[in-house]
């Protein structure tokens, strides 16, 4: 199908608005994402107790919470669509590439909001020391883009499989590992407040890896979406 250059922006915007509206109606993904993260943070904070932790440990714990909550939340959206049958209607009316862009934007916005909230609660429960808050926020945002870049394509596959939600972290983890390793490294630096001084390959990885993921997903999505 041809995609007229003038029409696609409006159509993608319409898709994103539709997803936002349907999410706001039930708030299912937001709630489950957030509750999952909250439980993780509470367990960690409770067991760690009054002992502080080094920046490296904070980076690891934060990303564990972010990774698993994101996985839990993203698969909900598209699985629900397939189950309710609205996915078929989409398939008939909109070219696959536009569906992908719309889903990507929606997932990214959703994850950005929730992950920043999780970060806020992380500071509340764990009180990591150090003055690099701005850097940490930046790293969380960049990492979130990688998370949604990988998960959007994979969740389309998972939606048709029988294990559904449990499958997504299994499929996503090997692909996201380079990004996660870099994210933990850079977050650790950011907690120490040294982000701008010491950044290097890791930050570049966090910027460019999602671009590669998104490009590949854009090319592969039609194969997974259309029957």
């Amino acid at each position, binding site marked *: 199908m041809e995609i007229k250059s003038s029409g696609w922006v409006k159509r993608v915007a319409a898709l994103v608005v539709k997803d936002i509206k349907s999410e706001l109606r039930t708030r299912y993904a937001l709630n489950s994402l957030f509750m999952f993260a909250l439980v993780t943070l509470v367990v960690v904070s409770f067991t760690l107790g009054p002992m502080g932790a080094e920046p490296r440990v904070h980076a690891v714990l934060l990303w564990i919470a972010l990774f698993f909550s994101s996985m839990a939340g993203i698969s909900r959206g598209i699985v629900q669509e397939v189950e309710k049958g609205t996915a078929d209607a989409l398939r008939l009316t909109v070219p696959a590439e536009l569906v992908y862009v719309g889903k990507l934007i929606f997932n990214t916005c959703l994850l950005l909001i929730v992950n920043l909230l999780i970060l806020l609660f992380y500071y509340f429960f764990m009180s990591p020391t150090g003055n690099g808050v701005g850097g940490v926020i930046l790293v969380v945002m960049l990492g979130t883009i990688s998370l949604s870049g990988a998960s959007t394509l994979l969740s389309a*596959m998972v939606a048709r*499989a029988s294990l559904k939600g449990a499958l997504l972290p*299994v499929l996503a983890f*090997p*692909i996201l*590992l*380079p990004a996660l390793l870099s994210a933990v490294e850079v977050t650790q630096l950011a907690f120490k407040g040294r982000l701008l001084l010491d950044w290097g*390959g890791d930050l570049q990885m966090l910027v460019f890896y999602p671009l590669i993921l998104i490009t590949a997903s854009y090319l592969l999505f039609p*194969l997974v979406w259309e*029957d």
Partner: protein
Amino acid sequence: MLVKYFLGLWMVLVIFAAFLYAPAAMGLGDYSRIIYFHVPMAWVGGVAYLVSMVYAIKYLQSENLHYDRLAVFNAEIGTLFTILATITGAIFARVTWGDYWNWDPRQTSIFILLLIYGAFFVLRSSLDSDGDRRARFSAVYLLFAFIAVPFLVFILPRVYASLHPEPIINVEGQLQMNTQMLIVLLASLAGFSGLYAWINQLYRRIVRLEDKGGEFDL
């Protein structure tokens, strides 16, 4: 027919050479002999992944399920060789660095290869085999997961300090190995590659015979 006898003889020679002809390395001593087996196995594990990907692409182009079978088979072989490479690597790690596993960047990358293979098989087992969905999704996953591989195999070990002996072809692009060791290593690489090609050929023969109506237990 003749090729397999030649291959068998070659491998026997390689094994003898690994223990008798190649000198013990400086520092590592006789433990270094494991590289004549460990490196080719890791190599075959990686090549098998590439071959699976090629078959996956061919499947996506032609929608012929024959290619899907070959892709899965090569993924199985790749998994086997990668497991062997991981085990031999862990043995080496235990005797030289003290622990079976330290998350050295190269260990991490081979572990991720195993995870990719594992995820691939989990994905396949969670999809029905009727229709072409399973084949299509498997192919897409192989291609998508490949993005992580160059980062993990080439970039990561060079960025982070590694316990691994320096990559044989190092940053300046020059070989630094003793010639005798190099000969045995290359011979072993050739032998293992030959083994892999032979296994593939056997499987294709089985597939051809099965399609004609026979039944085989693999």
